[in-house]
């Protein structure tokens, strides 16, 4: 059990890192892109917009907590 917990924690830290909002934002944006694309709505613009939003909020969040 302890090994499994350590194993899962390692992969969580490896993939998600110290800001879970980045991973959550990426997954939500990819899901929204898929929904729009399957409804035949142009969706290529969504990821560049999301990158600006996700990066900005991550930077603001980290800059605030480091003060």
């Amino acid at each position, binding site marked *: 059990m302890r090994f499994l917990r350590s194993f899962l924690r390692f992969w969580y830290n490896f*993939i998600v890192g110290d800001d879970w909002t980045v991973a959550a934002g990426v997954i939500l944006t990819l*899901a929204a*892109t898929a929904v729009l694309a399957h409804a035949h709505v142009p969706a*290529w613009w969504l990821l560049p917009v999301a990158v600006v939003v996700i990066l900005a909020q991550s*930077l603001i969040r*980290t800059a605030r907590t480091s003060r």
Partner: protein
Amino acid sequence: MGTTLLILSVFLACAVEAVEALTIVLAAGTSRDWRSALTGVGAGLLVLAAIVAALGPALTVIPIGALRLLVGGLLLIFGLQWLSKAILRAAGRKALHDEAQIYARHTAAARAADRDSRFAVPDWYAFTLSFKGVLLEGLEVAFIVVTFGASQGSIGLAVLGAAAAIVLVAGVGVAVRGPLARVPENTMKFAVGILLTTFGMFWGAEGAGAHWPSADASIPVLLAFTALVSLTAMAILRRTNSGPNPPAEHTVAIEVS
């Protein structure tokens, strides 16, 4: 264009991580035992090679759409994290990585540890420190090699880019006989972050079923866009940073037991 950027991305990512691994291996070798430290390096590289050899062919079995969605998502998460940290460091909001201080810290800890021989390795501490250093620093690169390579259909080229970086960093390390403190690590991480984010956006959108207006020709536009956004964010953070820069970062958590 795609192949050149693929090799460049893997080379830069691997070079940055190799510089950090070199510092740990040098600390283990100079303060403890070179034979054990180098055995640890070999064991670490073997595990990483096994991960690439196992995951690479496994990923090529996944349908290209699903693969690009998965790879795009992972590259975006990794890329935005690299980019965020590099921007904060460049803007003075996060401590810079100081290889000389990390080396001194690991050397002091290594000298204080007890000597213990296991499995024909004369110094288990030096072996474990090197092994964990190489494995932990190299794991992300192994993922980048596998995901980039599988999406572009050229894992061999990605491995070549990584191997070239390891040879170069190891060669310079042997010549300098010390940690590579003058390597512009943060600039390299900034570049890797931009490249990973660019390819993450491109493949992620394609995997989700969207189509870029100019197909592959959109990649340089996305690259310029990501660079512009990152440089703007850095300039804004620099302008609003009124406090002193944080002290250099000198902790790498590698537990040796």
